[in-house]
């Protein structure tokens, strides 16, 4: 292929070269001959060029032809080669196929042999498996036997071991028990020793107990004595307190006496003034009553004046009204007359009113009649008009007929006039007859038409009247029918709405019923709800009510207590407290009485024994009056100082005892000696005197 291409190229190149040389020759020749003859060579040049072009084209085509030939040859060669190769390939493949087929057959034979061997092998396998299974079973049987024997052996071994363990345990138990026995004997001995100790201790303790009991009895006796002494102490302390209180109260006595005197004087004074007061009050009351009476008389006066004025007015009335009035009776009479007049006038009024109404009614009826009559008149007018129109029509018809008749007559006359010369009478008579028939027909037709029109006109009139009636008087009928239709339609609509509403209600009620059933509602016709009478709710409610009642009672009781406590303290106390209060009051009273008695006794005893009556005038000031005093006012005043010493105060009586004061108090510093000296002195004076 490449050689061919190279030859192709070389031929191309050679041809091109030849072509170029061919072209260049004429150019040279042209150049050579150019100088010689330029003008006459143009055409030759042109021809040569043309020839050259043609030659070029030929060359080109030849070139092309050569190319195509070469291509064709090449294609043929390639085709041949391809065919050759393909044949080779085919032969090779056929050979391969044969080889393959042989191989296939060989393999198939092998497969068959192998399959036979497989089946044999399977049979062998199955036989062997059976043998195996049988052997296995035998083995299993043997194994089981072996196991059983093993288990038996194991069981035997276990029993042996357990028995051995038991033997060991028993031996240990024996040892333990022996140990315990020994320990227990030891313990027993110890316990016995302890017992002896305890017995000895018990005896000691018993002795101590006895001694303690003796001591306790003595202690209790001492305690009793102590309590007695304590009670005595307490009583004495109470006595002291009472004495102090009584002394303080006694000190207040002179003040009280002074107040008493003052109050008595005031009393007397007030009594005197009271009498004066009463007198003055009586006077005041008398004056007041007079005042009231005067005021009343004044009011009466005023009233009387008013009445007088009224009466004057009444008197003037008579003059002002112009009637003969002197007394109120006249006035009443006049009033009655006026009232009677009024009544009569009212009656007349009512009568007139009723007459007016009746007249109005009659007027209305007359109006109605009038309208009816007018309507009737209208109808009759219409009828008359119809009749008149009819009359006119009839007159017109009559005119028409007369005209026709005249015409016909004229025609006939003309025909008669014409008939005389000619003898066309039968034809003319026929024509006449035909014409008359036609005439009659037309006349009949006319009559019918007129009748129709008349009837139509009548119908129209009737329609109009009917319409008028409908509009004027019987308007309500058509409207009634229309109204009826409307009413019925409305009724239908209302009924439909009601139906829908009822359907909705029904649905709602059914839903509600289902809901209620779900919630536990029931139909009393079919079901009944029961429960036990003694059920926990009832029991709980009862219990609750009881609790509530109990609580209420307690509340009322407590409220009463509180109220009574708030009202009066000592009175509202509870019974216990009251009793305590009363008992304490009683004890107080008794104590007071007892103390008073005792004090009195003591004072009298003191007075008797010492000869002096000791009074407490003011705090820390004591006044002593002697039994043998010459005057009631003779008394000695002693004051207790802040340091506790008693000091004699200056009194009139003590001024007379200056010597004794100097001797006993200043010199000897002993108040009892002074006091006894004073008593002796007074006693001596008394006895001598």
């Amino acid at each position, binding site marked *: 292929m490449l050689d061919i291409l190279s030859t192709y190229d070389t031929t191309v190149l050679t041809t091109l070269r030849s072509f170029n040389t061919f072209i260049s020759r004429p150019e040279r020749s042209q150049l050579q001959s150019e100088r010689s003859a330029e003008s006459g060579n143009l055409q030759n040049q042109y021809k040569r060029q043309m020839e050259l072009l043609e030659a070029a084209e030929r060359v080109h085509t030849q070139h092309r032809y050569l190319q195509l030939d070469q291509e064709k040859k090449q294609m043929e060669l390639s085709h041949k080669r391809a065919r050759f190769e393909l044949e080779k390939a085919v032969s090779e493949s056929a050979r391969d196929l044969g080889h393959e087929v042989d191989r296939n057959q060989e393999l198939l034979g092998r497969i068959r042999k192998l399959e036979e061997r497989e089946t044999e092998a399977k049979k062998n396998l199955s036989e062997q498996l059976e043998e195996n299974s049988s052997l296995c079973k035998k083995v299993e049987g043997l194994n089981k036997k072996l196991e059983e024997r093993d288990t038996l052996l194991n069981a035997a071994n276990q029993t042996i071991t357990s028995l051995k363990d038991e033997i060991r345990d028993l031996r240990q138990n024996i040892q333990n028990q022996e140990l315990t026995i020994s320990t227990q004997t030891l313990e027993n001995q110890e316990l016995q020793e302890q017992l002896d100790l305890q017995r000895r201790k018990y005896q000691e303790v018993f002795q101590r107990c006895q001694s303690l009991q003796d001591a306790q009895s003595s202690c209790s006796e001492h305690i009793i004595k102590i309590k007695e002494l304590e009670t005595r102490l307490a009583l004495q302390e109470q006595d002291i307190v009472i004495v102090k209180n009584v002394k303080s109260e006694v000190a207040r006595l002179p003040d009280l006496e002074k107040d008493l005197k003052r109050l008595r004087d005031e009393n007397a004074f007030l009594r005197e003034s009271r009498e004066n007061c009463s007198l003055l009050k009586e006077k005041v009351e008398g004056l007041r009553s007079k005042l009231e009476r005067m005021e009343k008389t004044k009011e009466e006066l005023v009233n009387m004046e008013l009445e007088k004025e009224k009466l004057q007015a009444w008197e003037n009335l008579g003059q002002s009204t112009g009637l003969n009035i002197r007394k109120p009776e006249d006035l009443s009479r006049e009033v009655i007359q006026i009232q009677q007049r009024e009544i009569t006038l009212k009656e007349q009024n009512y009568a007139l009113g009723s007459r007016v109404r009746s007249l109005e009614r009659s007027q209305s009826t007359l109006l109605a009649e009038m309208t009816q009559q007018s309507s009737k008149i209208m109808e009759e007018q219409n009828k008359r008009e119809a009749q008149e129109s009819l009359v006119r029509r009839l007159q017109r018809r009559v005119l028409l007929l007369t005209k026709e008749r005249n015409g016909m007559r004229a025609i006939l006359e003309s025909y008669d006039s014409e008939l005389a010369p000619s003898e066309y009478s039968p034809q003319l008579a026929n024509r006449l007859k035909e014409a008359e028939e036609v005439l009659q027909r037309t006349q009949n037709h006319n009559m019918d038409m007129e009748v129709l029109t008349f009837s139509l006109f009548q119908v129209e009139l009737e329609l109009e009247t009917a319409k008028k009636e409908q509009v004027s008087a019987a308007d309500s009928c058509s409207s009634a029918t229309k109204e009826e239709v409307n009413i019925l339609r409305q009724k239908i609509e209302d009924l439909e709405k009601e139906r829908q509403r009822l359907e909705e209600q029904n649905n709602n009620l059914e839903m509600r019923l289902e809901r*209620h059933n*779900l*919630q*536990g*509602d*029931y139909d*009393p*016709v*079919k*079901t*009944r*709800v*029961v*429960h*036990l*009478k*003694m*059920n*926990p*709710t*009832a*029991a*709980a*409610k009862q219990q*609750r009510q009881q609790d509530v009642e109990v609580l209420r009672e307690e509340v009322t009781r407590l409220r009463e207590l509180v109220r009574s406590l708030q009202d009066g303290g000592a009175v509202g106390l509870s019974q216990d407290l009251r009793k305590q209060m009363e008992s304490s009051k009683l004890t107080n009273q008794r104590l007071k009485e007892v103390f008073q008695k005792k004090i009195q006794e003591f004072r009298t005893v003191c007075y008797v024994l010492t000869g002096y009556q000791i009074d407490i005038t003011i705090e820390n000031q004591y006044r002593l009056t002697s039994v043998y005093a010459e005057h009631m006012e003779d008394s000695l005043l002693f004051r207790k100082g802040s340091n506790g010493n008693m000091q004699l105060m200056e009194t009139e009586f003590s001024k007379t005892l200056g010597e004794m004061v100097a001797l006993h108090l200043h010199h000897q510093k002993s108040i009892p000696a002074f006091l006894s000296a004073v008593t002796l002195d007074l006693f001596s004076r008394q006895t001598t005197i």
Partner: protein
Amino acid sequence: MTSTLKGITLKGSTELVADFFSFGINSILYQRGIYPPETFSRVTHYDMSLQVTTDSKLKNYLTNVVSQLKEWLYECTVQKLVLVITCLETNEVLERWQFDIECDKSAKESSAPREKSIKTIQDEIRSVIRQITATVTFLPLLETPCAFDLLVYTDKDLVVPEKWEESGPQIIDQSEEVRLRSFTTSIHKVLSLNLKHSSLYEQFVVLHLTCCLSARCVALVLCVLLSFIFAGFHLSLH
């Protein structure tokens, strides 16, 4: 406890239903705290542990009611058993536990045992009692002292025994219902229902929970618990 009979007779069915009521009422009383928990003791029944009261008065009352109920169940004249919880202070009905009983009256005439194993019935009863215990979690606590009563809805033509009397239906107005599972012995069918007084907050929660129980989804229950807590916060804030 297993019986050797293969099927369910009318008598057997009444025994099962009466047992269920006895244990169910006991567990409701324990769960709702009507009686103090120390008066209850634990027993095993239906392969689960249940609480039964030891108070003699209450036991007596329950046995009376249940024995009468057995008679009525045998005659198929009872329609409903209702446990009503009332507040003692306001005398207001707070809760109703309603058990609708549907009886197959043809079982009376045929008297042939029906094919239903006791095990499945016991399983169903167990699931109902478990559901009752679960519903108590979203019911409000009964703070005021309460008492309970057992009402029986029977046919109108029934003769009222001497210790029983007629009563009102003790309905709650404005209530919410939670429908629980039902079980059937193939002769008696028992449907359980709980009604309680509603409030705005509880309506919100109950809507969630009724959806949950019907869907039987644990995850949903957890979500609802979360919403419960959230609503609790919301309320506390207010």
